């Protein structure tokens, strides 16, 4: 057993790389609502925004007021509020696991140190890109059982395929954090869906994707599980080619 929580840095788990960063001052009604990112692939975008330049009150770029979508070419800002409202945004991006090409350097730090083990580095325990389970395909029995992996024991894992649920088993005292994005096939745009949102069993949402945090008991002996729900589909449904991207940090 290799406890990620005992390490400050551990190269068995990648140090996740920010492949995109942009600071944006956006005025509702006058600023362009889209701009090119020049990456050559669809980034997994996240970040924060504020209505004041000093970011005194900071909110996530996936709340009900400001959202950012991405596709292979552009970022699209959807900001609420009245015309003239100004937003200050710090926009970050990851590369999805399906991207294997080059990325431009984005190294930055608020100190002179780009790598500083006085701070801990959250290990990337798992990442994935999973599509909804097909309910009407008799030739894919594997899709009926879901995907499962143990995380935090033997190094970084990647998960791809089709499944309605992804079960990620881990051992206390690990307390993983999940980030999820949804690529909608109908628009071909990708958007952050949640950030560290967990629901105990029985409180699940019905709109995929969502993550369920399963407390000890079902697994026993301090074994825990995260269930990421990707949803189901049938041939011809709008979500047939949707993809849920996720990243899990320790």
């Amino acid at each position, binding site marked *: *057993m290799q406890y990620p929580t*005992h*390490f*400050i*840095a551990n190269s*068995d788990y990648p140090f996740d790389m920010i492949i995109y960063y942009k600071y944006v001052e956006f005025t509702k009604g006058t600023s362009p609502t889209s701009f090119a990112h020049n990456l050559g692939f669809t980034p997994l975008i996240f970040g924060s925004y504020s209505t004041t330049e000093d970011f005194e009150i900071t909110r996530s770029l996936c709340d009900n007021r400001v959202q950012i979508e991405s596709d292979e070419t552009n970022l699209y800002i959807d900001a609420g509020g009245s015309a003239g409202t100004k937003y200050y945004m710090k926009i970050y991006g990851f590369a999805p696991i399906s991207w294997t090409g080059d990325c431009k350097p984005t190294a930055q730090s608020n100190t002179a140190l780009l790598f500083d083990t006085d701070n801990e580095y959250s290990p990337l325990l798992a990442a994935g890109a999973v599509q909804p389970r097909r309910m009407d395909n008799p030739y894919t029995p594997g899709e009926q059982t879901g995907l499962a992996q143990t995380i935090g024991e*033997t190094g970084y894992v990647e998960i791809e395929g089709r499944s309605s649920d992804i079960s990620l088993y881990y051992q206390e005292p690990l307390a993983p954090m999940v980030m999820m994005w949804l690529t909608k096939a109908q628009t071909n745009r990708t958007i952050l869906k949640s950030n560290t949102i967990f629901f105990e069993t029985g409180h699940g949402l019905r709109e995929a994707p969502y993550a369920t945090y399963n407390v000890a008991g079902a697994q026993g002996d301090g074994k825990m599980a995260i269930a990421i729900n990707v949803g189901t589909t049938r041939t011809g449904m709008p979500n047939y080619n949707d993809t849920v991207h996720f990243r899990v940090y320790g």
Partner: protein
Amino acid sequence: MPNRFTPITSTQSTKAALQQINQNFMQLDAEAFTKTVQKGGNNQVMFGKLPNNRYGLLIYDDGGMPRILIGQAPKDGRPGVWITKSGFDVINEID
């Protein structure tokens, strides 16, 4: 000499001098595999062939606890970088 080689004095017999030379060579030969730097009797840095027969650079904290390994993992020799929190022996923590 500030380290571990013993100087040969002018009053030593030829036999004693040869023994001392060979002992110094043994020290030198050992350091071709493992270089260990100590302070106050505690290891500070070890480089080369490590006690577990893997190779790498091992850095200790003030209490003598190995905390940083840049080298081969104990179990399978895969190369990597591992840094443990205070109180955890980095060699024991890596599978």
